[in-house]
């Protein structure tokens, strides 16, 4: 077993917990209403906070008069941006948010002032009494608008006018490889923005103590980052801040930024000496957003006749909204993972994220990758058709091999996409259906991959990404402390399962204390599908260390040779004479007598990635999950309405920790992907209408109901990954990715039209059908015509592993100067051949450049 630094004790086989289906440790609390979400909390003397938000998309604040609000009966405090001058933001490079606007508002919904009052109604009334005088500024409303107009500048930082972030990277010689391709296709795609829509509206409760300490309960996925933002903005000693992440009522990435409302209740609590709570309305949750970026993409791919890719040139334009959020990372992610599914020997990526006067976009389930995945998988479907190849067969022939390094220097460990494709093809009856179903019915196939945690932390540091502490006591009970946050995915349960498996006890013997920055060791948060990978490994390490201590004590007390000791069934016993041994509680007591109080720690740092170029920080992961989905659709040619009766999906999870929870994550991902594919949209009115959100409500933001959900047949592919805890890889996000392209490809199979956009709305299908019938040029396709003319900088050139590169940029030299081999000429690059082979067993000794994220 990996990560067992102390004398290892053999693990009982077969495993008793890992891989089984069992209820979550908090399942009973969740079905009895006993779980306390943030808005369920109340403290004596608690005040209620409401925010006044901007009613203009872009304006200077000339004057804010809070006197009437302050005079309103029941109001205890009113706060404006003056009180909180220090900016914050999730990424160190984008510290561009203020808790309350200072001088400028940048979207309808930008917080301007806050009121704390005896009750919520009074706070709302007082907000309406605050007078704000604005001087309107022109609004930037779209990608094209932001590229064309350098003024007004939404922010005074960024790469190029209102272009927040530019990326230009080239791995290998794309033009040369493209020139040798037997077929080159260029397509343009658009993926509309959409949002997380967690059922729970964000809420936070702050309690300031006269001792100068602060406790904040919040529905956040990232208590550690909220902790840092609070300390920074409130100018507090971080040691005096405690953030407790309450169980999240759904999050999906929407609660992973530090938010102004979390900081403002803390500031108001400090100002009033009373606890202060805020619970956002549904409309305000839409304004917090940080959801899927709208992305306009051009993808040019050169292939051989067998469908193998020789070069890819990918360009993306992201509509970022008004603030940075995770946007720099999002921009890189639109170009990072194209290479991890199929071999792409030469690869160019250019991306630009544009500031616009709309709620900020950020990370939603799949962060930055569903959009390019849609483009890539739909284009491959077109390529397969042009080459008269079966799309499944074509993909199977071009897979990126396991244990390899991609052209953009991502290290691939286990790679089960081939198994996924075969499982989905077999299960769906693909060969009997593809191009064979009657008009109006069709099947489509798409694949994808996702990271199991980001290789680098959000802020530069060389400490572990995840820490676990274990406390054993005389009762035989075990407490696990970890900073991770359960957002419904079951991360508390995963901690219990991993520890229970190693110690041979029952998960219900374990108390999990999580997401409390005052008590639990740091875990960076529930994002980037990192939690099972990182907390799981940390938990295994902590539990293995505890097991070693107990083994010492039992061996000494009983004389059983240490190496024969087995931990199972809440006992520690002789593998050869199972009746000889001790109960787990006895073993704990003996160990406590021998060593004193039993407490162990475990931590996890991802292995160092081989990429060394600027931008190499986004994309690396300890392991990549893979998915393949086949969607069956029914298209009504009279209306263009698309129905999806069934999806078959295979997901390479490495090893399921809890099979039932894994299936739940796959089904939930399919659901969310289906919503994006068919109906979910985050859209805005024009500048004359102040760029207001079209429909910030549960009713008009179309989340599929029980009646739209498709049947899902899931195949878990379990090919353990060497880096994963018990071999596990992620499952929370990856299975969303293939759904939109699988649906689009199925629509083509059904009625012969291409909708190169997400969502696949009925009017788009109908328009394409009508155009096709009329024989219009380009008929049969609905989608964007092109991308804006934009002068990207010359790409940073990086030799690929096959070219003998080092993972660094070429210092301004061109390919011809260094005489690199033609990309694609070599075989699949092997990890062993690379100069910078990471050593996962000594992660803490790895030196790492600061990522550009």
């Amino acid at each position, binding site marked *: 077993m990996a990560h067992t630094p102390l004398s290892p004790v053999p693990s009982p086989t077969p495993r008793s917990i890992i891989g089984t289906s069992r209820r979550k440790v908090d399942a009973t609390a969740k079905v009895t209403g006993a779980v306390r979400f943030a808005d369920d909390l109340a403290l004596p003397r608690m005040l209620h906070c409401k925010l006044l938000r901007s009613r203009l998309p872009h304006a200077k604040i000339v004057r804010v008069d809070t006197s009437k609000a302050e005079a309103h009966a029941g109001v205890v405090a009113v706060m404006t941006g003056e009180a909180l001058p220090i900016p914050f933001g999730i990424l160190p490079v984008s510290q561009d948010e203020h808790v309350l606007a200072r001088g400028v508002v940048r979207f309808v919904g930008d917080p301007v002032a806050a009121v704390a009052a005896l009750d919520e109604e009074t706070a709302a009334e007082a907000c309406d009494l605050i007078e704000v005088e604005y001087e309107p500024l022109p609004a930037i409303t779209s990608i094209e608008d932001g590229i064309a107009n350098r003024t007004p500048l939404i922010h005074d930082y960024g790469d190029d006018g209102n272009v927040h972030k530019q990326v230009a990277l080239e791995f290998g010689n794309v033009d040369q490889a493209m020139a040798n391709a037997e077929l080159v296709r260029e397509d343009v795609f658009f993926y509309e923005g959409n949002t997380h829509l967690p059922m729970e509206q964000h809420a936070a409760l702050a309690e300031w103590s006269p001792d100068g300490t602060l406790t904040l309960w919040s529905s956040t996925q990232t208590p550690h980052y909220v902790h840092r933002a609070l300390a920074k903005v409130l100018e507090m000693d971080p040691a005096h801040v405690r953030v407790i992440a309450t169980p999240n009522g759904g999050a999906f990435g929407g609660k992973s930024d530090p938010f102004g409302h979390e900081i403002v209740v803390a500031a108001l609590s400090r100002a009033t000496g009373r606890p202060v709570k805020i619970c956002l309305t549904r409309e305000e949750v839409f304004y917090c957003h940080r959801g899927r970026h709208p992305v306009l993409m051009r993808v040019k791919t050169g292939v051989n006749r067998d469908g193998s890719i020789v070069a890819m040139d990918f360009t993306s334009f992201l509509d970022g909204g008004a603030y940075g959020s995770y946007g720099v990372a999002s921009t890189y992610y639109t170009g990072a993972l194209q290479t991890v599914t199929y071999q792409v020997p030469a690869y160019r990526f250019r991306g630009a994220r544009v500031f616009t006067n709309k709620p900020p976009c950020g990370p939603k389930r799949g962060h930055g990758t569903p959009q390019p995945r849609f483009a890539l998988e739909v284009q491959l479907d077109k390529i397969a058709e042009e080459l008269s190849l079966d799309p499944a067969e074509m993909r199977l022939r071009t897979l990126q091999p396991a244990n390899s390094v991609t052209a953009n220097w991502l290290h691939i460990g286990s790679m089960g996409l081939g198994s996924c494709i075969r499982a989905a093809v077999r299960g769906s009856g693909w060969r009997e259906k593809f191009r064979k179903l009657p008009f109006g019915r069709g099947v489509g196939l798409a694949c994808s991959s996702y990271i199991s945690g980001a290789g680098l932390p959000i802020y530069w540091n060389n400490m572990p990404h995840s820490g676990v502490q274990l406390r054993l006591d005389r009762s035989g009970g075990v407490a696990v402390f970890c900073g991770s946050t359960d957002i419904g995915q079951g991360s508390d349960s995963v901690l219990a399962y991993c520890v229970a498996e190693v110690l041979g006890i029952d998960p219900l013997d374990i108390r999990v204390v999580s997401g409390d920055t005052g008590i639990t060791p740091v875990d960076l948060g529930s994002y980037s599908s990192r939690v099972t990978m990182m907390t799981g490994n940390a938990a295994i390490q902590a539990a293995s260390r505890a097991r070693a201590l107990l083994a010492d004590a039992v061996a000494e007390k009983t004389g059983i040779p240490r190496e024969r000791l087995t931990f199972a069934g809440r006992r520690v016993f002789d593998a050869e004479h199972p009746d000889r041994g001790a109960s787990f509680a006895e073993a704990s007591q003996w160990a406590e007598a021998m060593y004193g109080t039993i407490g162990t720690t475990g931590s996890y740092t991802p292995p160092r990635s081989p990429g060394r170029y600027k931008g190499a920080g986004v994309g690396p992961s300890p392991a990549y999950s893979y998915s393949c989905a086949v969607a069956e659709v029914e298209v009504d040619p009279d209306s263009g309405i698309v129905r999806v009766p069934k999806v078959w999906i295979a997901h390479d999870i490495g090893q399921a920790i809890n099979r039932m929870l894994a299936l739940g994550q796959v089904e*939930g991902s399919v659901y969310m992907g289906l919503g994006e594919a068919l109906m979910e949209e985050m859209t805005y009115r024009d500048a004359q209408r102040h760029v207001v959100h079209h429909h910030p409500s549960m009713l008009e933001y179309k989340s599929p109901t029980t*009646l739209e959900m498709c049947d899902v047949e899931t195949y878990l592919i379990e090919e353990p990954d060497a880096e994963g805890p018990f071999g596990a890889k992620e499952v929370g996000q990856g299975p969303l990715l293939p759904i939109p392209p699988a649906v689009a490809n199925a629509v083509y199979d059904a009625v012969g039209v291409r909708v190169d956009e997400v969502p696949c709305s009925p009017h788009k299908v109908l328009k394409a059908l009508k155009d096709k019938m009329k024989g219009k040029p380009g008929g049969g396709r609905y989608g964007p015509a092109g991308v804006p003319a934009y002068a990207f900088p010359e790409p940073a050139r990086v030799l690929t592993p096959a070219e003998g590169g080092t993972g660094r940029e070429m210092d301004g030299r061109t390919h011809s100067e260094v005489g690199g081999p033609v990309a694609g000429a070599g075989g699949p690059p092997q990890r062993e051949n690379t100069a910078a082979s990471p050593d996962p067993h000594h992660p803490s000794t790895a030196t790492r450049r600061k990522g550009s994220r």
Partner: protein
Amino acid sequence: MQHPISIEPPIHRTVHAAFVVNGERHEVAIAPHTTLLELLRETLGLTGTKHGCELGECGTCTVLVDGVPILSCLALAVAYRERAIETVEGMAHGHTLHPLQEAFAELGAAQCGYCTPGFLLAARALLDANPHPSRAEIASALSGNLCRCTGYLKIFEAVEMAAERCERCEQKGERRGSESVGQSVSESETARTSNALPPESGPTTHNP
């Protein structure tokens, strides 16, 4: 620009009323504009009932009134005085979970758990009226409750499993209240549900 909201509230009276929640009678004084959702969560402290929009657009706040699932966010509390209101806290009998609760826990039908109380109560009303629902009937009965985590499939399976188990307990004569639409529960039924104790609130990690 005029401010259409009147800041001075009109004169209104506080209402004294009795509410029967999970078989327990509560006499409280509330403002007439208090919704049933606010009464349950804020006046009575029954925070098991959640809220997701407060406009009747998500089903998260579902509770039962006389066995019928309704949207507590659109229900004026005073209009439901002296009626039999049931929340998620009243579903278990002592330490015995309702078969639906058991099935939801067992099958992973509650991921984040936020929509779960609403689904449980809507499903409870379904099974009381239709002990053997088909998959389509389950989907239809739950079509007013949104869930963003599960994709609903585990919820459907849990309702099916609970139906099977209810059938078994029915055969043992343990079937719970089966009020039909629009009818009030009788005195005796109210008395019977009053045996339902709220579940022991076990220690949770995150209590302030």
